């Protein structure tokens, strides 16, 4: 049936079974359709391979950025709509650094710092890439993480902290304000143009049954860095008291304070971890796709929300799994539906999960 046995309570129960049945039928149909396509040669293995790889890459970015969102969502109890723009901010700060290091002496410093605003410098011309300018890229990653940490701490300090007691929706609305301000400030500074950031990275073609799947150096970089960071966070939360304190706070903040948890410090740690991952995710996203625009993070945000909800708010494994599911859905859905609906398909998956299992796949298994 494809749907794991899950215990259900109360009302969910009534709707779960028929839903599961319908879902199972749909899944079977899709699979059959795909197999038929493969058999008749309509669909090719290499197609599936490249789409799956593309989806995996996207999923890693979404998952990495999702961890931060998920953490702040559960601990501070609000859906942070400015998270997408933290991603963009991380990307701009990191790429500004990369441009500067890669292009120093070859172009105007102002143009480099503004990441080639208005077409003043091209990343391709500077030959930026993981293999060609590794130092510039690594420095960019570090700065992206660091800057986003500072940004999120500053925003928290000045904007979220004073109204922390007001409840999730107040904070949510405020975060929409932050998102607007941040996004268009970045547009003001860096311009509204989309710029290409890298030279074409070297790639290898993997031959897959009936065609080639291209995997390039930046795909590999993304894979390595994202999995490394995910593992790191897992260990951090598992090995320290922080993880437990975060869960306690997520649950009942007043009581957490009464039991002596330094809540402000926990909040800060949350922003530091979440912000850092988010900034790096932003940087890696740009490295992978090769273009940078002021809207990038915002466009990703809804997919990240989908991933986080899918996985279960507060769970880092949920965020990662959700990210992969959403990424793969968005990419691979074109095997069945017109590509115009690729993003829509990801949202539909999220809505369906919300109906079947509102608390997400990994509900309850929070941070550690």
């Amino acid at each position: 049936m494809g749907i794991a046995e899950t215990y259900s309570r109360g009302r969910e129960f009534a709707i779960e079974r028929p839903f599961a049945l319908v879902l199972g039928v749909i899944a079977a149909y899709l699979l059959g359709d795909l197999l038929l396509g493969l058999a008749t040669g309509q669909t090719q293995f290499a197609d599936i391979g490249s789409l799956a790889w593309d989806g995996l890459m996207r999923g890693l970015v979404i998952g990495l950025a999702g961890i931060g969102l998920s953490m702040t969502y559960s601990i501070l109890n609000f859906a942070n709509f400015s998270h997408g723009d933290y991603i963009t901010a991380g990307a701009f700060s990191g790429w500004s650094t990369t441009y500067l290091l890669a292009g120093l002496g070859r172009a105007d410093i102002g143009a480099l710092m503004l990441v080639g605003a208005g077409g003043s410098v091209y990343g391709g011309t500077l030959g930026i890439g993981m293999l060609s300018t590794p130092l510039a890229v690594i420095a960019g990653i570090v700065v992206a993480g660091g800057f986003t940490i500072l940004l999120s701490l500053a925003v928290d300090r000045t904007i979220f902290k004073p109204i922390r007691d007001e409840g999730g929706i107040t904070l949510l609305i405020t975060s929409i304000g932050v998102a607007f301000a941040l996004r268009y400030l970045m547009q003001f500074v860096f311009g509204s143009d989309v710029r290409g950031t890298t030279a074409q990275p070297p790639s290898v073609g993997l031959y897959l049954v009936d065609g080639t799947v291209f995997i390039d150096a930046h795909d590999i970089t993304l894979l390595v860095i994202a999995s490394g960071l995910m593992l790191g966070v897992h260990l951090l939360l598992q090995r320290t008291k922080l993880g437990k304190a975060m869960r306690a706070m997520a649950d009942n903040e007043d009581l957490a304070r009464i039991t002596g948890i330094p809540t402000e410090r926990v909040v800060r740690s949350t922003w530091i971890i979440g912000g850092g991952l988010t900034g790096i995710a932003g940087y890696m996203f740009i490295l992978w796709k090769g273009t940078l625009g002021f809207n990038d993070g915002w466009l990703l945000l809804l997919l990240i929300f989908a991933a986080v909800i899918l996985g279960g708010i507060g769970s880092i494994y949920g965020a990662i799994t959700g990210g992969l599911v959403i990424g793969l859905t968005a990419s691979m859905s074109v095997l069945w539906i017109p590509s115009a609906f690729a993003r829509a398909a990801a949202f539909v998956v999220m809505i369906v999960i919300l109906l079947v299992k509102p608390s997400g796949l990994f509900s309850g298994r929070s941070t550690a």
Partner: protein
Amino acid sequence: MSVDANRNATSGAGIEDRSDVLLRVRGLDAGYGDLQILTDVDMDVFDGEYVTIVGPNGAGKSTTMKSVFGLTALMGGDIQFKDEDITGRKPENIIHVGVGYVPQNDNIFSALTVEENLEMGAYILDDVPQDAIRAVYDRFPILEERKHQKAGTMSGGQQQMLAMGRALMLDPDLLLLDEPSAGLAPDLVEEMFDKIDEINEAGTAILMVEQNAKEALRRCDRGYVLANGQNRYMDTGTALLEDEQVRQDFLGG
């Protein structure tokens, strides 16, 4: 001994002079936001003492407790604990001076398991004191049985026990209990009071709010009656129990 209704609660029994004072609240004005609930409340707890606060619903009993723990808007007065001024300190710091608190509502982490709740009780220590957990389990065996259950799915009474257990993890000098017996089955009420006696006898001072007033006053050393956010009576528990006026107005005859 009967107490004059208008007499200032703290003026009797030579309380001002005792030197072994643990908690001293003077002239406390506090409330929520701009709304003032407490007016000029005075209260003392001495080393190892067992003090009960009773009073009608909405009198400000819980507010008093919360104020000691830094959870309300303070508008005046001061609070001393062991000669240290803790007025206006944050709750997460107050626990370090040796005060434990079991709130009236919302007193467990519902998404955490029972055992994790207990561990959180000892958060400020570097390591989880296994013996403290053991001691709690010995007191409340049901908690051990359910140690991996989500606390939020425990019954009302079970939650109350868990909350007590959590506050005991640090072996505090003063334990603030807000209606610890509410919702407990009679055997447990009894047991709970016995436990509190035990805890008290082991040296922990208790400041407790109870609606089960007769039982509470019977057991405690001293009691306060609070009404309308002000001190009304203060005396030994038994004296209050016997006071006709108090019985009539506050103890249901």
